[in-house]
């Protein structure tokens, strides 16, 4: 697999790996059957993401995209974080091999799922945020 230097760097030295106790929002996407699961933890204070962590079961690209996605949202407001799409994650990693693009989608979904969890817990509506899809058990991304 031909990975960029940035992907290799984030795979070898993942940023923000770990968990946050009593996180403001936790999102988990993917499933073991497909071979990748991402779990993202966000600490949100005054509408701002003050900390982000992840745990990931998956290939090199899945670990690198989790690392980059959490890195990109740290310090951002919720509205700014919504702009961290799979495309943004991919660009920040200097691209991904075509068969690995689904890993960046998973990273975007994990961030959104964590924000959705935060919104639900606090009974608020985040403009532009869609409810995470629940049928992930059935379909593997490719």
């Amino acid at each position, binding site marked *: *697999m031909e990975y960029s230097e940035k992907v290799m760097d984030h*795979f*070898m030295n*993942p940023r923000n*790996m770990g*968990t946050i106790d009593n996180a403001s929002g936790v999102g*988990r996407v993917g499933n*073991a*059957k*497909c*071979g*990748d*699961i*991402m*779990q993202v933890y966000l600490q949100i204070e005054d509408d701002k993401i003050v900390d982000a962590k992840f*745990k*990931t*079961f*998956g*290939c*090199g690209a*899945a*670990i690198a995209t989790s690392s980059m996605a959490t890195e990109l949202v740290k310090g951002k407001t919720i509205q700014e974080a919504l702009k961290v799409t799979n495309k943004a994650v991919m660009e920040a990693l200097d691209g991904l091999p075509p*068969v690995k693009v689904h890993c960046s989608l998973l990273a975007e979904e994990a961030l959104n799922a964590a924000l959705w969890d935060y919104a639900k817990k606090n009974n608020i509506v985040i403009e532009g945020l869609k409810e995470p899809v629940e049928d992930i058990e059935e379909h*593997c991304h*490719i």
Partner: protein
Amino acid sequence: MEKLIYMDNAATTPVRAEVLDNIIPYFTTKYGNASSVYKLGQSSKKAVEAAREQVANALGADVSEIYFTAGGSESDNWALRGVTEALKEKGNHIITTKIEHHAILHTSQYLEQIGFEVTYLPVDKYGKVSINELEAAIRPTTILISVMTANNEIGTVEPIAEIGEIAHKHGIIFHTDAVQAVGHVPIDVNKMNIDLLSLSGHKLGAPKGIGAIYIRKGTKINQLIFGGAQERKRRAGTENVPAIVGLGKAIELANEEMEDEVKRLVLLRDKLINGIMKAIPYSRLNGHPTDRLPGNCNISFAFVEGESVLMLLDMNGICASSGSACTSGSLDPSHVLLALGLKHEEAHGSVRFTLGYETTDEDVDYVLEKLPPIIERLRSMSPLYEDYINGKDNA
């Protein structure tokens, strides 16, 4: 040079030095076409026939029963397509297994598309075919049985002699894909009741792009490649003389050394398997514990994914492979591991180390030193491992 521990000998092997020495002149000075009448051509012809004899000797076959091909996949295609086409008036059913190489499985699927019926036999948890199930699957219309001698992923060696005996009892042609077995386990086409056998050069120290098929005298099989009159008019194409010479030499060396080399590799293999199983909890050996290729070690590590293991091994100079979907570019993990009854996540977490001629005791020690912290590191990142540990704490 950077440290390189090559443990992917089931994928391919380096060309052995003695083999390369034999090959070189057929590129540079003895480059004649084996079909030409002048001396230069005839020296190529002689070299091809000498190699044919070396291959025949290694299999207990007659020289007239060996045909050179471009590799294992061509041999498999030829066996399945050639026999079914030749015997289509007699019947339309073939029997194979769920754990065959894709060269057999995809050819079988093609045969189904053009009207043949195929039974894919299941295997037990070790990857063994059941003789009873095989015999029960035979129909009056069965014309071919194809079961691999040894599996490329898990190394399980199948009961080939017994399968061949049953095939012959029912008057059915028996083919075996022996690509992973030839040169590594003893083969005798007569004692093992084999009618057709596929083999490949680059799995045993010869170059890539060369293989052979054994066709028992009198076996009904049509031609696959049409054109010139090479290979007694049964396989067209100018002979790949250097590669054929290499295959002959490599198979001869492998057979001469087999007894000692198998003993040596089995010791190293079991040291690796036992060392890993002892050092890394939640791991399982895939394949048969004893009826397995001397160089094959295939282990699933729970809670981690194979490709990330391979990448970290590669950082340490270790080459291995995995049955994870991520390494194949397909949606599903290895069909072989799923056929054993492994869950998808167990198959995703599989790593295969295949030892070979150049593997040393130090190499095994090095892998045993580097692998445990790699698995531990990936587990520390894995939400599945966290779930498991938390679940255990609560229990």
